[in-house]
């Protein structure tokens, strides 16, 4: 009989029957029953009711049955903590078993049961197991320390497990070392104060490198990842680590290879760039990276995402390997798209012919996304490799001839870029482009086509007709098309003023009167004013020379790239995002590449003396298609507000000059006045602008100083103080007053452990000695890297102050808003997802009475304190503000503020994963809103 039968039982009264079977005397029947229970658990049925019955089966010498019961326990112990206690005895007993497999099983399972009461009992057995004679038990115990730390970090530190764990790094067994490393890395990640005990030094790194040769493939990954977090003290050490890591590049496991690549890439930063050793390293890196492309497709994907980063950091590594990135017919689509990205990056004059032939091939494939990207890539090639531009353009024309709708549209989008890069070179093809006008249905393609028409309006005879045809459905167009159409028609007018007045007036009125899009309206007004006041200036502004288009696309911003290089092989490198963008909770230190060693720096300086330092010019980045905010003059494919500022700027000096009186002027003078209502509207408009641009209050809220230590308790020392956040820095503002008879000196401050790990970032800087009857103020910067202990209430901070007289203790409340981070603005989508994700029991409502503000002032006030308004909605007359904020320890808090007009009571709803912070957050809202 096979086990699959357990999946089929769904009859009523099942639980009852199972109960009977579990309590059966027959061993076989018992075991069958437990299997059924596990099967039900797997498919998602709730079998927690059977807890006592299953636990009763635990005391058995049948290892298989024991494992099944343990599996059940791990799943349900949390929901039945009192019952779980029943199992403790068996665990403790099993930890003493003569069979090491059972000892390890017990300690492994115990760590997975997240019940406080059980963890207390776990400590002693765990301590024994960490020193067990059997390596299998020790390696299991090592991981168990990490488990325990996850449940109760304080306990692990108090019980000295960190030291025991560190000792395991010197274990004779390589697997024990590997698991200890894994556990240490995790603990250091989670709590910074453990770092002091577990910090790696060259001695431990040496031990790890020795174990590296002998442990399992997974162990090698743990060790390499951990080594990558270590910064060697000098160039020599960096090189010696590299030498011992490079053999791993020949390992069959892709994870080992990539982790080794990570270590080498990081350490190379410290080595002399021109040296032979770096050259040899660069040579060594290419083959294993190429080999990864013959692994399973999923691994290829991870490899390709990483290669994308590596190529951006050090393009020399793979510059000769173009061919391996050619797409295979049956590569999965995700591999194809990534390969294409890398192909474009590696394209150069030497390989352009091959690349172009390939791209042309790809453009005829089936997958729409892939084809589009291929067409786009052809355009990129044209921009990147000038001598090949002509061939690229003719390839694109061939593709346009296929008449495949999306190919044509994509081709037109890239041809627009080519026109920008090589002005007045390829306009002969415009006729062909115009033939396809009516097949364009995507906004980006339409906008591009309109741009081309506007740009070359003087050469296209029927440009006015073409643009007019677009104008018919103006209101239904996408914003970027509308903006582009507006600009193109104004260009046309400036180039051919005689016969296009009507058209331009039409578009101006459409965009200023009939549109509710502020960007469009504003641009319309600006053009209008510009044209009416000084057409010459208008010409200068609208037809200005455009800045050069850059060669590279989608480059990752350099500091982010450096950070991602430190995360090679990890998820961050797959997403191309820093870990804190997708990992919750942990503040985690940002990883940075090690600085160049002194020696290397000296060398660079020497070189610098001979020739200017060869820092590569930073190309301006063309944003990817989805984030096209547009470049400023008139390429506003994504309708960015930034464009307006740029255009307004040159317009200002032109404005006061009286009208020059060209042909088109007269008509405009009138039209404008009518439309603008005699200029008064214009004034209003500017007034409004002034309001918006008027200096907002940028001060964050600082509560008034309070007396923290009265003179009566401080033996004559009175301390008042408060907390403030200035320039991303938490400060404790202190005023010391000496009310005693003798001068005071030798001040020192210390904090007790507190909820947010606050501690002084420097020693207190105060004028000493402090003579009697005088006061001195100081501002003490704080950081959040101190020891953490949850306080009750959360915001309490106990401070000890010492002077030459005595030590005094005082207790203060930290207003939570000084802990709000500057980067607390959540992406809208993430906000939505997170809001949904947090269960509704976590939501709490407060009412804040008597607020003397409206929605706008509220959000700007909060904004100054790093509470970010992400969205504003008006529902049935009441304003809803959606806000996010982030604490220094990485906790996100989402808020919804409901504001009814003419009701000074606001309703505040909070949502966060950690509910303990609510009270303090609410207090902050109270304070800020009443301030």
């Amino acid at each position: 009989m096979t086990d699959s039968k357990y999946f089929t039982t769904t009859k009523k009264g099942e639980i009852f029957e199972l109960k009977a079977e579990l309590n059966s005397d027959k061993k076989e029947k018992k075991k069958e029953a437990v299997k059924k229970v596990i099967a039900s658990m797997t498919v998602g049925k709730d079998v927690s009711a059977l807890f006592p019955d299953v636990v009763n089966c635990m005391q058995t010498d049948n290892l298989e049955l024991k494992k099944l019961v343990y599996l059940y326990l791990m799943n349900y112990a949390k929901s039945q903590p009192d019952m779980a206690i029943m199992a403790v005895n068996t665990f403790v007993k099993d930890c003493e078993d003569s069979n090491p497999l059972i000892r390890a099983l017990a300690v492994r399972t115990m760590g997975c049961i997240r019940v406080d009461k059980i963890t207390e009992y776990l400590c002693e057995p765990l301590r024994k197991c960490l020193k067990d004679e059997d390596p299998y038990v020790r390696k299991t115990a090592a991981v168990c320390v990490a488990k325990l730390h996850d449940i109760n970090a304080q306990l692990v530190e108090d019980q000295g497990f960190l030291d025991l764990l560190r000792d395991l790094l010197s274990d004779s067994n390589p697997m024990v070392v590997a698991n200890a490393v894994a556990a240490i890395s995790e603990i250091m990640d989670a709590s910074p104060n453990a770092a002091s005990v577990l910090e790696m030094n060259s001695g431990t790194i040496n031990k790890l490198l020795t174990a590296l040769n002998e442990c399992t493939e997974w162990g090698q990954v743990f060790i390499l990842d951990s080594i990558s977090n270590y910064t060697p003290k000098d160039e020599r050490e960096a090189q010696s680590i590299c030498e011992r890591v490079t053999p791993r590049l020949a390992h069959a496991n892709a994870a080992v290879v990539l982790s080794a690549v990570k270590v080498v890439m990081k350490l190379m930063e410290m080595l002399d760039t021109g040296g032979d050793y770096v050259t040899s390293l660069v040579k060594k890196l290419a083959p294993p990276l190429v080999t990864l492309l013959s692994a399973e497709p999923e691994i290829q994907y991870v490899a390709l995402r990483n290669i994308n980063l590596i190529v951006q950091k050090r393009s020399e590594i793979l510059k000769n390997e173009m061919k391996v990135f050619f797409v295979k017919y049956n590569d999965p689509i995700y591999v194809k798209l990534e390969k294409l990205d890398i192909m474009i990056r590696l394209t150069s004059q030497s390989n352009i012919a091959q690349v172009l032939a390939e791209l042309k091939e790809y453009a005829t494939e089936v997958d729409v996304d892939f084809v589009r990207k291929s067409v786009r890539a052809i355009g990129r090639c044209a921009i990147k490799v000038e001598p090949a531009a002509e061939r690229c353009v003719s390839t694109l024309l061939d593709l346009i001839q296929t008449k495949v709708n999306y190919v044509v549209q994509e081709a037109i989008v890239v041809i627009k870029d080519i026109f920008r890069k090589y002005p007045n070179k390829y306009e002969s093809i415009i006729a062909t482009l115009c033939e396809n006008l009516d097949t364009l249905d995507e906004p980006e393609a339409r906008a591009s086509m309109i741009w081309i028409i506007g740009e070359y309006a003087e050469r296209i005879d029927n440009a006015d007709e073409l643009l007019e045809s677009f104008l018919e459905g103006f209101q239904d167009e996408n914003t970027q098309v509308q903006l582009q159409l507006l600009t193109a028609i104004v260009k046309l007018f400036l180039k051919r003023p005689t016969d296009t007045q009507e058209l331009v007036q039409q578009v101006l009125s459409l965009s200023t009167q009939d549109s509710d899009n502020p960007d469009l309206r504003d641009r319309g007004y600006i053009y209008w004013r510009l044209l009416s006041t000084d057409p010459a200036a208008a010409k200068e502004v609208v037809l200005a020379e455009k800045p050069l288009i850059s060669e590279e696309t989608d480059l990752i911003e350099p500091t982010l790239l450096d950070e991602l290089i430190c995360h090679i092989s990890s998820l961050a490198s797959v997403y191309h995002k820093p870990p804190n963008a997708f990992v919750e909770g942990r503040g985690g230190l940002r990883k940075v590449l090690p600085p160049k060693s002194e020696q290397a720096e000296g060398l660079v300086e020497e070189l610098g003396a001979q020739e200017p330092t060869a820092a590569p010019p930073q190309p301006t980045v063309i944003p990817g298609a989805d984030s096209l905010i547009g470049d400023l003059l008139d390429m506003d494919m994504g309708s960015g507000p930034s464009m307006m500022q740029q255009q307004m700027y040159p317009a200002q000096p032109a404005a006061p000059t009286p009208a020059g009186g060209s042909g088109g002027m007269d008509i405009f003078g009138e039209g404008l006045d009518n439309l603008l209502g005699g200029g008064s509207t214009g004034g209003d408009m500017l007034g409004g602008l002034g309001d918006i641009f008027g200096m907002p209050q940028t001060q964050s809220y600082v509560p008034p100083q309070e007396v923290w230590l009265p003179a009566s308790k401080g033996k004559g020392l009175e301390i008042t103080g408060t907390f403030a956040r200035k320039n991303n820095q938490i400060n404790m503002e202190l005023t010391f007053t000496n009310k005693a008879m003798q001068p005071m000196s030798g001040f020192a401050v210390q904090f007790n452990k507190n909820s947010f790990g606050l501690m002084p970032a420097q020693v207190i800087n105060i004028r000493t000695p402090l003579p009697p009857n005088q006061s001195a103020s100081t501002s003490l910067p704080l950081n959040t890297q101190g020891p953490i202990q949850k306080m009750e209430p959360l915001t309490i901070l106990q401070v000890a102050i010492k002077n030459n007289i005595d030590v005094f203790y005082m207790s203060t409340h930290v207003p939570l808003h000084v802990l709000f981070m500057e980067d607390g603005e959540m992406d809208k989508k993430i906000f939505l997802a997170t809001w949904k994700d947090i269960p509704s029991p976590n939501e709490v409502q407060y009412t804040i009475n008597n607020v003397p503000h409206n929605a706008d002032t509220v959000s700007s006030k909060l904004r100054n304190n790093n509470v970010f308004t992400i969205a504003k909605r008006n529902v049935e007359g009441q304003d809803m503000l959606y806000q996010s904020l982030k604490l220094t320890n990485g906790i996100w808090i989402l808020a919804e503020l409901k504001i009814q007009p003419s009701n000074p009571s606001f309703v505040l709803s909070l949502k966060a994963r950690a509910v303990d912070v609510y009270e303090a957050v609410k207090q902050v809202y109270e304070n800020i809103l009443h301030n």
Partner: protein
Amino acid sequence: MIGGLFIYNHKGEVLISRVYRDDIGRNAVDAFRVNVIHARQQVRSPVTNIARTSFFHIKRSNIWLAAVTKQNVNAAMVFEFLHKMTDVMAAYFGKVTEENIKNNFVLIYEILDEILDFGYPQNTDTGILKTFITQQGVKSQTKEETSQITSQVTGQIGWRREGIKYRRNELFLDVLESVNLLMSPQGQVLSAHVAGRIVMKSYLSGMPECKFGINDKVLMESKGGKSGQDEGRGGYVKSTSGASSTKTSIAIDDCQFHQCVKLSKFETEHSISFIPPDGEFELMRYRTTKDISLPFRIIPLVREVGRQKMEVKIVVKSNFKPSLLAQKVEVRIPTPLNTSGVQVICMKGKAKYKASENAIVWKIKRMGGMKECQLSAEIELLNTNDKRKWTRPPISMNFEVPFAPSGFKVRYLKVFEPKLNYSDHDVIKWVRYIGRSGLYETRC
């Protein structure tokens, strides 16, 4: 690290669910089903992020394996692990199918408990796992037995146990190469590489140290000529390597080794030395791109005669020693989707139009070296109003030849077992070379 591991059937029903970390809730199981398996649009990445939770998945026939995490894990490791996991399952109960998974779910839980601890992969060597995860119920192991198991699981040589004995010490080496080619219609090689594997079957007593010698340029140069004389000893069955018999050494772009190979020794002394696992394993993988002797060449000629007819002529040329025979030769010629009928004529082998696969499949059982075969076909097309041109997928080919197209040669494999009384000479060694087609495509 890995927070949880789920296995689903094609319908998205959970077959196995094992959660390792507290941050992964039960809803993660459903999130993956809804957003990936049942996603309206096919998911286009093996890594998916749903509400700050990352899902890694692989698919084996219609089974989904998904690993879940909320942390910044080592992505390459997770995928390597998932693949290893399927290997382990296959080694225990054969094909990874829904039926087999359901039949062995207790076993799978037991394995998962062992090879993943708190999301950290542990020893995943099937040979070792099988010594103590047996599903045979209780076996009262003696103290010696258990301590032997634990030392193997954690040991330096985690892939081999002590005390193996064979009456006849024997080993088999298979050099398996797959040739990959992409050729333009004009016969220009766009890309070609050989992916080679050395699979070893060892039946050796004790803890034998092996040294392996190949004709890699770098290795040979660093050794000088001194070990040249080792060739041809013992019981080698020498396979003549086809076209490249004149070449003495080849340039290997990159190679990778089984974890038993001492990598540091390879790096410093350029020698491949190892203590092999018992039985079959993959010793080495390598890749070459230079001087590949391509066993076959296809010359396509496709002509569209009007809108309703196409003429195809294919010539296949074999390019290796006439004394050798290629086997299982198969040429696959794609046809347009609107094909209504095909007439094929070929001089050798059998050719058939397979409507379901949109291709003409031409099979030739055996083909000698330096030969040429031809096929011509007339394809009738239906009238369609589909504007899109047919994209002409490449013509692909499968075959098997008895030599290594890269020119790879085994020079020696020496066995030392200092503790037992057998020497290198007593070991019977077999070598075999097989070249297979990988992706062997010619555009037309």
